[in-house]
Each structure stands twice: as C-alpha cells, then as structure tokens.
C-alpha cells in the first residue's frame, strides 16, 4: 500500500514540475509497449496472406501493407524509446530547476528545532542527497513497470485470440506467480533493511579510517586489531544475514520462475498441438512462436523492474515525512520596535525531545548599548540563552523580548539589525574569503573596505594580505587553489562576520576557544573597541573577557545566580570568584613566589588547589542536573576561599 502511495507521490510531483515532459515520458514508454502484441498480429497477417498469395496469387497488397506497417512500427519503436529516455532527462533538468528551490523553501520554513532533532536529522540526511533524482527514478520505474505489465497482458491477450487455453492457463498461473514475486521482493527489501544497522556501524568505522586524527591514535596505540575485529564482526553479520534472507528470497523467486517456465512450455505445446489439429493457421503459429523469446524476456525483465520500483518507492518514504514536517511558528511580522533593550521575562526552556529543563525561570534585562558577559560551567545554559535570543526556539514559558516585542514576532531584517551572532559551533564555508566574511551582511559583498575592516578587527588581516588573490582567495578544498584554514583562523573569520553586521547587539558565544593566547589577547582588545560601537553579549569560559564587560551574569544549573560588575562579584563569595581565582592562579605570581626560586611552592599551591578543585568539579559534572549544584558551588567557594588565603 505504501508502495502505491509513494509511487503516486512521485508521479504527482513529477507532473507538478514537468507536466508535459512527464506526459511525453509516459507516451514514449507506453506506445511502444503495445508494439509487441501488434507485431504478432502483423507477422501473422504477412505470413498468412503470403501463403494465400503464393497459392492463389491474391492478397499481395495485404502482405505489403502489413510489411510496411511492421517496418514503420519497428522504426517508431526505437524512436519512441529514445524520445522517452530524452524526456526523462529533461524531467530531471526541470526538477533540478524548479523542485530544488521549492525544497529549499520548505527547508527554510522548517522550525529550527527540527534540525536538532535526531529523527528529523535522518530525514534531512536523505534530503541532503539531492532527492529529486530519487523522485524521478521512482517515477520512471513506476511508468516502466506499469507499461511492462500492460504490454505483457496485451501480448497474452493476442495469444488468447489464437487459443483460449492460453488465457485459462494464465488465470491459473497468475495468482501464485504474483504472490511469489511479491513475497520475493519483500524478502529482498527486508534484506536491505536488516543490514542497515550493521552498515551504519561499518560506515562509522570507515569514517575513523578517513580521519587523520583517528589514524594517528590508531597507529600509536596499535589499535587496528580492535578496529579489524569490529569490522569483521559487522561484515560477518551482514554476510550471514544476506545469506539467510537471500536464500529464502531466491527460493521464492525460483518458484515463480519455474511456474513461468511451465507456462511457456504450456503455450508452446498448446500452439503446436493446435497447429497439428489445424485450428491455428501457419501465420498465427509463426507469429506466436516467433515472439515467445521477446515475451519471456519481458516477463523476467518486468519482474526485476517491479522489484526495483518497490525498492525505489520505499526509498522515497523520507520525502513524504519531509513534506509533513511542521512549519516554523515564528510570525516574523513586526517591523518596528520602540527601544533597543533586550529582556528575558521568566523564561524556562527544555530542548524539544529531551527531559532536562535547561533554563529555569530566567529573567534579566540588558539595556541598549550595554556590555554584558554570561559565565558559568559547561551545561549551565549559556549557549541556550543565545539560541533563544536569536529566535531559534520557542521558550516553554516566559518571553524573550527585543525592544519590547517577542523576538519571534520581529521580521528577520529588523532582528538582524538588532542582533548579530557568532555561535559556538561557527561554520567555515568552502567559498571565497570575501563571501565568508560578507555572510555577516550580504549587502556589503563588494565593499572591500568594510570587509577588510571587519577582518582587521578580528585580527585576521593576514588572511588576505599574504594571498595573491586577496579577498577572493578560495577557502577549503572545493576548488583546486583553495586552502583550508586552521580552526583558530576560521574562528576569526566567524568573528569578522559578526562585525560586518553592524547590529545594535553583537553576541559572541565562546569567541576565543580555539585561538592561541596572543591572538586571544589581541581579540579582547578589539572587542573592547567594538564595545564602544555597539552593545555586546559575550559568553566565555575565559573570564578575562568577562572582566571587560559592564555587567556579568553567572549562570548555574539554568538559573542566574549572580549579577553584577567584576568588582562587585569579586567582592562577594560566589561561583564567579572561585572560577576567576582558579583561572587567574595560572598567571598570578605574587612577589613572594617570584623571590622563591624553587618551583616547590608553585606545585604545592597547585596541588592544594587541585585537590579541592578536583572534588568540586567532579560533583559539578556528575550532578550537572542543577538542583544540587548549589551545594557544590558553595562548598567550592569555601574551599577556594581557603586557597585564596593560602596565597
């Protein structure tokens, strides 16, 4: 049933985007489908009339007419086939032209959360492999399969005019044959499905082999043995599985084939017998026997076609799911706001499909132009705030406001004017440097000064200065002359992108995680410059950057536990102070230590600190859930307090 529905879907889609070509494909495939049967009739006429002409001298014109028709038919047979093939390619072209943009539109109208959900990921994975080709293939196969069956029935119909027994035989054979074929196809399909899990495992292993990092580890650890063991296990399972199911499928297929052979023999014997009895003319005999080879080939061909059709039809199941994905719910209509403040009002948030509440009743207000930093441990909910702010998700409760309007109600242009964001998992695009930077604001694609300015601010001007093609150099490996950047360099490009936008607020999620200390330091200085241009929201592990903000908000377990300037927070006992001390202890060397030449003291402090830190961190990680975090944090504070005194 699903097969029929999916075939119908493919046909509908093809007709939607290329109606005339689809029609041509159908005609081009269907018309020659009847030629097989017509051929029998024509050959029969030629022979019968030829004989009567040889005997009586009459009816030559009938022979010539039939012969002419036969020649014409054979000519058009192949012409039609060619034509259909060409039209099928045109269909592909039209689908690429018109269907692909529609898919893009649909993708763009999906709720963002869909992209992060696992189930949808599988669908999108399929969509990402140019799905219109699958659709077209399914359509082609459907047409060919239906035509195959129709033309076989037509040929058999012509046979039936020769002898009714052929029809009776068919009625007897058809039902079990169809059943066997269907069961066989099903079996083959199951074969494919059963092995997907193992296939995914093998794919995972192969992925490891392609990664130079993994190969380095494997070589040094000599862990190839484990890899091989796993591969052998998976491939052995696949082999056993295919053998088991394959043999069953072959049995079913074989039974169906034997039935068909019996039926062919039956046809031959019936017709030969009838000839001897005189109930069949010589022409009929010649035509029927002569076309048997074509018939058998057609039958075995179309059984394969149908199997293939079923496979392709089940294969495009993902597209149906894709079409049914929910549309995004953000309205994006309001194009005016009263002021430039950002506010969270009692926002709670849980990622769709998960249990854990990541944000719990978070409320804060950031005034226009303010410089704010969010700090906190891994999993405290910092990045989630950024995602909500960007309007990617709808909060469970509460409101995320930009200028007093809910962010998901703002038009995209206005929201972009308000906010530009560098995400933690920023992307590098394998395009030109110019494009990569200008993606922050496509309007300035050809504005060299703007782009260079942004790169400069992100401390990445060497990326174009040292290159022959300057801003138009290719990044990544897609083009021959392209070169990949290091992670740190990509990150600076991403930051430059944010500077391009010139938005009221610049949101930077972990902007310096992958850059080296010098670059990091320079970037902070540049951030300071930017801070005077616009409001900034910064999320960082490196508390040094937080220090420059007007205001620091400390997140812990999805709540804001501290809020204030660096000085205020350092004055109070709390999570911030302990984190800051831990980090600065790497760099703080008070005079006492410098005088003391031995590194003994250094290590002793480290050990002292690490022991305390060690336990508290462990607690933090294991209880990430949040509620009990309070204890962890406060314990840590006292511990750290002592550490501070020691120093």
């Amino acid at each position, binding site marked *: 049933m699903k097969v029929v529905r999916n075939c119908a879907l493919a046909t509908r889609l093809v007709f939607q985007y290329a109606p005339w070509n689809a029609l041509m494909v159908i005609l081009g495939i269907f018309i020659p489908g009847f030629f097989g049967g017509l051929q029998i009739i024509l050959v029969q006429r030629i022979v019968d009339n030829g004989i009567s002409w040889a005997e009586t001298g009459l009816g030559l014109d009938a022979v010539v007419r039939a012969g002419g028709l036969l020649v014409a038919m054979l000519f058009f047979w192949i012409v039609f086939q060619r*034509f259909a093939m060409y039209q099928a390619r045109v269909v592909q072209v039209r689908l690429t032209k018109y269907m692909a943009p529609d898919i893009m539109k649909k993708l763009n109208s999906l709720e963002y959360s869909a992209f992060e959900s696992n189930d949808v990921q599988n669908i999108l994975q399929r969509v990402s492999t140019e799905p219109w080709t699958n659709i077209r293939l399914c359509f082609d196969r459907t047409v060919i399969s239906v035509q195959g069956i129709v033309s076989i029935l037509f040929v058999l119909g012509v046979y039936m005019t020769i002898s009714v027994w052929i029809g009776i035989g068919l009625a007897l054979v058809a039902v079990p044959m169809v059943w066997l074929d269907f069961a066989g196809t099903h079996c083959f399909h199951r074969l494919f499905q059963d092995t997907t899990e193992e296939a995914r495992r093998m794919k995972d292993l192969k992925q*490891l082999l392609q990664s130079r990092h993994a190969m380095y580890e494997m*070589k040094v650890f000599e862990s190839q043995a484990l890899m091989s063991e796993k591969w052998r296990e998976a491939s052995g399972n696949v082999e056993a599985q295919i053998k088991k199911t394959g043999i069953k499928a072959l049995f079913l297929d074989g039974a169906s084939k034997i039935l*068909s052979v019996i039926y062919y023999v039956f046809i031959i014997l019936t017709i030969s017998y009838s000839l001897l009895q005189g109930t069949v003319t010589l022409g009929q005999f010649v035509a029927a026997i002569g076309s048997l080879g074509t018939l058998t080939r057609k039958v075995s061909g179309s059984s394969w076609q149908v199997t293939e059709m079923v496979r392709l039809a089940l294969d495009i199941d993902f597209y149906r799911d894709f079409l049914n994905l929910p549309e995004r719910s953000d309205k994006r209509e309001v194009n005016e706001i009263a002021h430039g403040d950002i506010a969270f009002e009692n926002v709670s948030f849980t990622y769709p499909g998960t249990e854990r509440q990541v944000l719990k009743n978070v409320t804060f207000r950031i005034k226009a132009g303010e410089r704010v930093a969010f700090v906190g441990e*891994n999993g405290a909910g910092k990045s989630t705030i950024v995602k909500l702010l960007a309007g990617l998700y709808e909060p469970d409760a509460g409101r995320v406001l930009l200028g007093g309007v809910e962010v998901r109600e703002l038009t995209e242009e206005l929201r972009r004017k308000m906010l530009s*964001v560098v995400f933690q998992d920023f992307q590098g695009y394998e395009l030109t440097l110019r494009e990569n930077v200008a993606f922050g*604001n496509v309007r300035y694609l050809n504005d060299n000064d703007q782009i260079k300015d942004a790169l400069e601010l992100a401390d990445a001007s060497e990326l174009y200065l040292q290159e022959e093609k300057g801003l138009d150099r290719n990044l990544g490996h897609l083009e021959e002359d392209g070169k990949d950047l290091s992670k740190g360099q990509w990150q600076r490009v991403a930051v430059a992108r944010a500077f391009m936008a010139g938005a009221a607020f610049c949101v930077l999620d972990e902007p310096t995680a992958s850059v080296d200390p010098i670059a990091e330091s320079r970037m902070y200085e540049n951030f300071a410059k930017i801070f005077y241009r616009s409001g900034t929201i910064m999320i960082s592990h490196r508390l040094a950057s937080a220090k420059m903000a007007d205001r620091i908000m400390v997140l812990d377990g999805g709540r804001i536990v501290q809020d204030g300037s660096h000085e205020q927070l350092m004055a109070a006992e709390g999570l911030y102070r302990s984190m800051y001390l831990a980090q600065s202890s790497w760099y703080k060397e008070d005079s006492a230590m410098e005088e003391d030449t031995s590194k003994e003291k250094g290590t002793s402090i480290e050990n002292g600190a690490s022991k305390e830190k*060690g336990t508290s961190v462990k607690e933090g*990680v294991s209880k990430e859930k949040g509620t009990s975090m309070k204890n962890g944090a406060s314990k840590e504070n006292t511990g750290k307090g002592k550490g501070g005194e020691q120093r």
Partner: protein
Amino acid sequence: MNSIKHKGIRYMGFCIRDILRFTPLMLWGKLTVSIVEGALGVWMPILLAQIFELVPNLDASNILLFQRNVVFLCLCVGIPPLCSLVARGMSVYNDSKKESCYGWRMFEHAQKIKLESLEDPEVLNAFQKANAAYEQASASKMLSALFITTQAALVCISTVFVAGSFSLWLIPGTLLGFLVHLFTNIYSEKHRAAIYRGQSSVRRRLWYLWQQFCRRESVKEMRTLGFHEYMKKLWVETSLRVVQEMQEVELRAVKLGCVAIIIKNACYAANVAIALYLMVNGELAVGEFAACLSAFSLLQAELTRLGDTMGNFFAAYHYVEEYYDFFQTETEETGHEDYRPFQKEIAIKGVHFRYCGGDRDALNGVDLNIRKGEQVVIVGVNGSGKTTLSKVLTGAYLAQSGEVRYDEQDVKDIRREELYKDISLVSQDFVHYNFSLGENIFISDLSRRKDEKHLQEIVDSVGLKELVQGIGGIGTLLGKEFGGCELSGGEWQKVAIARGLFKDSPLIVLDEPTSALDPLIEYDILTKFLELTKGRTSVIISHRVGICRAADKVVVMKDGRVVECGTHEALKHAGGEYGRIWREQAKWY
C-alpha cells in the same frame, strides 16, 4: 592515451584477480549462465527457421522432426529464466561477500596509508569514491555487463549469419545497421562520460552547497545572519550551468541516436523488402521468409540491449577504476631496526618538515633535546608547528631533512610498531569512538584489555569513577550514534586522558586538550595530568602558558622553530617570546 589504455587493462586484471580470489563461484556461475544464454540466443533463431520451414509442408515423414524441434524450443524458452535465477543467486552471493572481501581489503589498505597522505583531500576523495564503488558491487556489475555485452554481440553476429545463410543479399543491410548502432552508442557514451568528468568539481561544489541547507550548524547561521538567499542564488546559478550542459549532451546523443536509428531501420526495411522480393521470385520459401522476419526483430531487440549494457559496462568500469585507484595511495614506510628503549634522551636535530601541497615548512630547522623523565611543555601561537613537532617526534611523520634520534637510533630506521609500544598520547582531536566506555579506554593497549584492575585504577585516577557509576558501568556504549550515552566535552576529555594513561609507556604526548573546556575543568585536568605522569617522559603542548610553571622545561615555538627553551622562571625574565606570551595572557587577570 596509451598509458590510459594500459591502466584499463591492468585494472581489469586486478578486478578479475580479486573476483577469482573472493567469489570464484560467481565468476564461473555468471560465465556459465552467459554461455548458456548466448548459445540459446544463437540457437533460437536457427531453430525457429527450421520449424518455420517444416511447418508449411508437415506430413508424417517429418512430424517426428517437428516434435523434436518443438521440444528443443521448449528448452530454448525454458532455460533462460532458470539462468537468470542463477545469475540473481550469484549477485546475492556477491552482495553477501562484498563487505567482508572488498570492504575488508579497503579497510586493510586504509590502515596502512601514510599519515600525511590523509591531509591531502585527494586521498580522502579517492577513499570515498572507492567506497562508493565497492558498495555498489561494481566489480560484479562490470563482469555481468561485460558478459552480457559479449553475449549480445555474439547473438547479433550470429543473426547476421543466419540471415546471410538465406541469402547473401541480406548481409550488407544487417551488418550496416549493426555497426552504425554500435559506433554511435560508443561515441555518445564516451562523450557523456567526458563531459561528466569535466563537471566533477562543479558537481562537488553543488553537492557541498546543497548540504549546507540541510546542516543544522549552517542553517542556524543562515537564519540569524540572513545569507540564505545568497547561498540559494549561488546554488541555482551553478546548477543551471551544469544542467544546461548535460541537456546539451543528451540532445546531441538523441540526435545522433536518431540518425543511427534511421540508418538502422532503413537497412531493416531494405532487408524486409529484399526478403519479400526473394520470396516473390521464389528464391525464398515462405517459412524462410518468416524466419527472416523473426531474425530481424530479434536483431533489433538485441541491438538495443547491446547499447544499454555497453553503457552499463562503461559506467561500472569507471567505478572499478576508482576502487583500484585507491590502492595506489602511498602506504607508510617503516624501518627495519629493532627498537632499543631510550635511556638518555630524544634528540631532534635540524628537522625540516613540509606537508604535501604546503607552500612553507611547517617545521623549519628544529633542534631540541628531551631527557628521559622530563616534563616538557611546548607553547606557541597557532600554526607555529607544535603539533607537527609532536608527530615528527613520535615518528608518525618523517622529517624531510634533519633527524630525530632516540639515544643513538634514528627514528627512520626503527621498526615503527616497536617504537609505538613505548609511546602513548592524548591527541588534540582525540577520537570519540562509538564503542563502550571500556573499549574507549583500553583501546590504547589492547594487550591489557582483560586487565580490569588496571582499568579501574585509571578510571579512578582521572576522576571518572562517578561517571562510570552514573551511566551504568564500564561496558556502557558511548556516543548517541548507536543509541549509547553521550558525554559532555569535559567528560570525553577525561576519557581521552584515561586512554592515554592506560597505556603504560615511558613516553607520553599530550596535545592541547583544553580548548572549549570551562576553567575549573581545565585546571583540574592539566594538574591531574602533570601529577599522574610524574617520572615519565611527557610532552605537553598547550596554548595556556599557565601550565609552564609546573614543567621541567618550557619550549617556545614560533614559525616552525624553537625560539626559546628553559625553565619558566628563566624564560619569563629573559625578555623574549615567552615573556611576551606570558604577559599577553596574564595581563587580563
């Protein structure tokens, strides 16, 4: 051209060799099937001609002959479906073998590839192509296509002979039709393949762009920054170009095909007319005329089949080529000396290293000594060659000039696998194996995989004990890919360190483990690592100069050279690069 042809023959040889080795049954099965089918295909028109000649003058004298021929006909019609059953069985058999034979062969080779080659996108490309090739069972497909093409060609030729046996006048028409069809097909196929190959880089680009619309990370940026329309435009423009080109190719193929069809059918019509004329003049019996007609229509069908399978053959061969191309990638060279564990120091002298395709030396004359038992920290800015140095040190990369000596032994000459027994590492991009937690740790030393006590000790020492209890034991599967438990970045980091420490080696390398970790965890991990590796020679590569205070020796790298080397205290006041980095980082605190 000559070399390409040569390669083609060599690869065919490889392919046949592998088929003989992996699935000989399939080769013989398919060969038998093709021979039987081919023979039947040739026999059938002859048999039909005989029957048709008999039929008009059937009488008691030849009724037996007629009956015998009908039985033969039953065989001719009945055997091919059984043959196709065998062929199908063979492909199932081949499918079942493909992962464990062709896949395994690739897997084995991939493990031996030179590490540096994996930096080369061409190699990765070759890997993916080869992978696609064997997953499609291209070798067996090519074999089938080859057999079927030969078989169809034989049937065509024999049909020409059958027609010729009735009258020589029928030969030229049949032959001409046959040849024209054959050559136009080959030509179109080649033309199409050439264009397609020419487009491969554009296609790659299209594929890449399209991926961006479906990837979470890209979509997020496209939406917030608003370059969706631009990407769309880029894709549409590029794809239109490709599509237009392909359409032209197809149109040309169709035009050419039509010319071929017209010639072929003209020949066919001429032949029918000749046969009719011969029959009218009494040179051909009615039965023979009928046999001619059936032979002609068989020829038409076979010719179409020939064209199709030939296309399939070329397509499959293309894949086979890609599969074997992969095996041409360079494999790792290893030394021949037995490794003698170093007692004094590792000495690096004047080492230069350049990545293939790179335009400058990643290491530009590095000199460095690491004494046994020393804890060394290497610092430097991005791209200064720290990670490369660590890989040269462990012998994973071989320096183009200069030498790396373990005591007196040059790393080039040491049998690599013996050297690796003494080295452990926590690499920068450590691997998240989708295996069990235990496997993720003991993978570093499989010889001790059963040593649960050691495993437990390591787990406790890096502070993973709670985690192990939390997720339900050491055997719990990690990674959400296969429904396992997903760890946070910090937890993975600890697993990686546990992995590095599980292997109890005299030398351990830790490469920049702390990016994207929060400060408390970073602090914890680095100090813990230092503590746990006391007494072992350890090399730590880090951005965070803070850790240098606790090290025996600090090495500062810049532009592929070691610019400073000494203790933290000495370097800090030396007023060089180290002091600069230190102050840059420290001034914020």
